């Protein structure tokens, strides 16, 4: 009794403890479950992120050097496009502390692409984030940083850099601000370039940057000299179909593609369709020889008078006013004789050869910027005759280059490519001409450069062969006499042809050096000569004083004025 009375508080405590125990236990469990709910929420979120990110590392594990987008290199491994960590400059106008009136002129001085008013608008706006420059040089970032505005932010963003600037710009194309390929090989190869499995390996194009640079610089020089509105140049490996150079001038800098004009972005080599004129004559001759229309190249055809077919008159630019054999026809570029031979060949056989050369299709290669050639809808007799010397049918310079490759490589057509081909991946090709015809054409093409309109294309020791083509540009209601497309299609070395070069100048104007002539022999041919002497050594073609294709018997067929005979 007395014990109980002595410790009433103790009893109360014990009973309170007993009373509290279940509540405390229950509450403990509730708190634990709440905390576990948090843990579960976090794990669910991690699981969701795993699923939504695909669970795969963006960077393949173990390789920190893996770029976000594969490099593009030329056939020798020279970098043409690479992704770098560039700087961007941005500002948080709502957090800016400088006086806008002071900051705006300073920003304008450093980044003059916006006016002071534009900067004031940005600074006075309450926007949380504005990009001021998406691709900034580190020096500029340092200068802007030195302004001391804490609301500036400098971000590292991957940027596509084209270290060779405008070299092969039309081939490469460019990427947008999100790093996706927009045109050119950047767009064509989009998947390959972004594929995490293959990103580490650069993509090798068929282009040889040295050759491309030589063609670009010689073309640009000629374009300036002759005030041409455009130019295109192609170098092609005749045995594989690989394009070593593909250029269209004016071109652009893919590092700042948005600052170039549409004219500069237009690829004349793939999109420009031109009536390429006399460069067609060797093709017509080859077709005629192949089909047995011309069995003897020494046979002479009447070129005394311009040829009148209905209301058309076909005349020669360098009239000889006599009968001409095949070598003479090509050397003097006779429209009359070519038309006569085309007439004998007939629509069917001519179309068959043209189709075998794929003149009716867009060029077979990777770039999507190519259209369908202008193929005559109705082949009248005059159509056949004019098509024989390259009028009435419009193709791209690339078509022409490939047909010349077919002419000289032994007669095999192969699709073109901008990708470097391993030696075992060269396509078989389709036979268009026989070896014999091809051999004969090699001699004839060399003869044109030795004796005819193509003299200016010769490069000492490199045995160039080729054909000029000067066509008046078609316009509404006829042809424009002073607007020419001057083309030279060539191959070298002719004793063992390896490369085809096509040079095209759009509306060149002759100068004193050419005696005022704007024709291909005076404008395009010298470009070929200079390009060959520059790229020949790079491509391992050994110049020789003594080696050459034997054209003695062809030369013997040329008529010479008595005074010229030795």
């Amino acid at each position, binding site marked *: 009794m007395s014990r109980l009375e002595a410790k009433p508080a103790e009893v109360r405590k014990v009973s309170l403890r007993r009373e509290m125990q279940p*509540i405390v236990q229950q*509450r*403990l469990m509730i708190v634990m479950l709440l905390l*576990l709910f*948090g843990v579960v929420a*976090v*794990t669910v979120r*991690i699981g969701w992120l795993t699923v939504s990110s695909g669970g795969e*590392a963006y960077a393949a*594990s173990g390789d920190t050097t893996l770029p976000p987008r594969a490099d593009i290199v030329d056939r020798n491994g020279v970098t043409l496009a690479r992704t770098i960590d560039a700087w961007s400059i941005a500002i948080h106008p709502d957090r800016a502390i400088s006086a806008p009136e002071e900051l705006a002129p300073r920003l304008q001085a450093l980044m003059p692409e916006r006016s002071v008013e534009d900067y004031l608008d940005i600074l006075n706006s309450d926007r949380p984030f504005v990009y001021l420059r998406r691709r900034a040089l580190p020096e500029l970032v340092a200068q802007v940083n030195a302004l001391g505005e804490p609301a500036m932010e400098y971000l590292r963003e991957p940027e596509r850099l084209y270290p060779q600037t405008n070299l092969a710009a039309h081939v490469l194309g460019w990427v947008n601000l999100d790093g996706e390929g927009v045109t050119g090989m950047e767009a064509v190869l989009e998947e390959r370039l972004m594929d995490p499995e293959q990103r580490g390996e650069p993509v090798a194009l068929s282009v040889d940057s040295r050759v491309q640079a030589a063609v670009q610089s010689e073309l640009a020089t000629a374009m300036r000299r002759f005030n041409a509105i455009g130019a295109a140049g192609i170098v092609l490996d005749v045995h594989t179909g690989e394009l070593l150079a593909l250029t269209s001038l004016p071109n652009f800098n893919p590092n700042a593609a948005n600052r170039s004009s549409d004219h500069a972005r237009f690829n004349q080599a793939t999109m420009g369709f031109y009536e390429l004129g006399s460069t067609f004559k060797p093709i017509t001759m080859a077709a005629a020889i192949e089909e047995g229309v011309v069995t003897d190249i020494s046979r002479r055809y009447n070129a005394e008078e311009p040829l009148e077919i209905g209301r058309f008159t076909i005349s020669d630019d360098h009239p000889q006013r006599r009968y001409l054999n095949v070598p003479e026809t090509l050397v003097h570029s006779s429209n009359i004789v070519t038309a006569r031979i085309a007439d004998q060949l007939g629509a069917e056989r001519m179309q068959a050869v043209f189709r075998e050369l794929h003149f009716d299709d867009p060029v077979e290669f990777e770039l999507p910027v190519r259209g369908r050639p202008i193929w005559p809808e109705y082949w009248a007799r005059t159509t056949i005759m004019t098509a024989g010397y390259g009028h009435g049918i419009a193709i791209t310079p690339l078509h022409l280059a490939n047909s010349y490759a077919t002419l000289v490589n032994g007669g095999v057509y192969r699709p073109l490519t901008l990708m470097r081909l391993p030696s075992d991946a060269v396509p078989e090709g389709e036979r268009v001409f026989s070896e014999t015809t091809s051999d004969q054409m090699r001699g004839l093409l060399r003869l044109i450069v030795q004796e005819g309109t193509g003299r200016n294309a010769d490069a000492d020791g490199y045995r160039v062969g080729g054909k000029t083509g000067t066509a008046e540009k078609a316009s509404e209601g006829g042809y424009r006499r002073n607007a020419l497309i001057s083309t030279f299609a060539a191959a070298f070395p002719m004793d063992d042809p390896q490369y085809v070069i096509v040079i095209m100048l759009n509306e060149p104007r002759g100068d004193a050096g050419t005696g005022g002539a704007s024709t291909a022999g005076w404008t395009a041919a010298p470009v070929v000569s200079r390009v060959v002497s520059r790229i020949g050594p790079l491509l391992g073609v050994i110049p020789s004083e003594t080696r050459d294709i034997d054209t003695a018997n062809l030369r013997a067929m040329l008529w010479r004025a008595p005074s010229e005979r030795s």
Partner: protein
Amino acid sequence: MNMEATVVKASIAKTGRRPLGDYIGRSHQGPLSEWFWEIDRVLLLLVTILISIGLIAVAAASPAAAERYSGDSFQFQQLHYFYRQIIWFSVGIPIMLVISTMPKELAKRFALAGAVCFFVLLVFVPFLGNEVNGARRWIGYGMATLQPSEFLKPFFIVAIAWLLSLRVTQDHTLPVVPATAIVTGVIALLLMRQPDFGQTVIFGSVWIVMLMISGVSTKLLGGLSALGVGGLAAAYFFYPVATTRINNFLFADGDSYQVDNAMRTLTNGGFFGTGPGDGEMKYRLPEPHTDYIFSVIGEEFGLVACFAIALLFGAIVVRVFVKLINEENIFYVLAAAGLATQFAIQALINMAVNLDMAPSKGMTLPFISYGGSSIIALSIGFGLLLAFTRRNPHLPALDKRL
């Protein structure tokens, strides 16, 4: 003297030392073996794993942090933060172990004294503190700089637990709830002045959880929850730091660059990670070694490592709470549950921020993030937790005593 003792003596005579097994063997009656058999060894194992993971994570994040904080005039060594972290742990782990050996009564007194000390220091922060990143949270100079609020957390919890337990052990009429409310309120005010919104949330929520466990009426709990929500709303409307943080999160307003980068880093490594040292995105992170270390782990060790860490924190919570179920001393229940709750809430908030589930606050991931104050304060807290959960293995249940 039995055979065994003779053998032991003989071995001492031979080697001059006794094998370690003797110190912690069940048969040995010394302080070390007593500690070993009383301590919650599962909890000790879990925290050891956590500290190991933390050291690896800081080693991974250290180069990124060193690069970020190096200037033209001064370059941090790549593993600077890793070496510093080892120093912090070499101080913190002994502190934790020593505290865990304290008799419970001594631990309680130690904690109460600490609570008073650091409360005073916290009061002085506005006058003596150093300003970092626009907040005045630190006190002291050089290596001796410390953040009183970090140290106050464990001591505060023990103090609140003690106050609340008075109602059960002494007199149920004591106004302990209002008393704890006043203490918490004063601390919250001091923290908001710094400003430190994240710590305020932790102090507040731990206090509410402890009230809940102490068995206050559901009516009061409902009122407090409403007050908590109201407080958050008030913070949102009247407290600019909270306003911007919450706006950023809810409406993706303003600059989401940091959060975006954290998310990108976290998922960059995929499920299995890029591998140690191979992370790239971590270099774009602010505070890769403290607030955003969870993202660095995600990048280099994969989301699987993030899973593991989340589960590890979950395991610690379960271990502590399940063991508390049959603890009869209300003070130990409250103190241990409060310490575990603080630990878990801090981890959850940090992970949620990294996973873009919560607005960003300056909150460290316990035992994983870099930081001297944080590591030593957590060591003290965990040491107290280990001390209060120590259980005499020979006295199984409370029922027998009552």
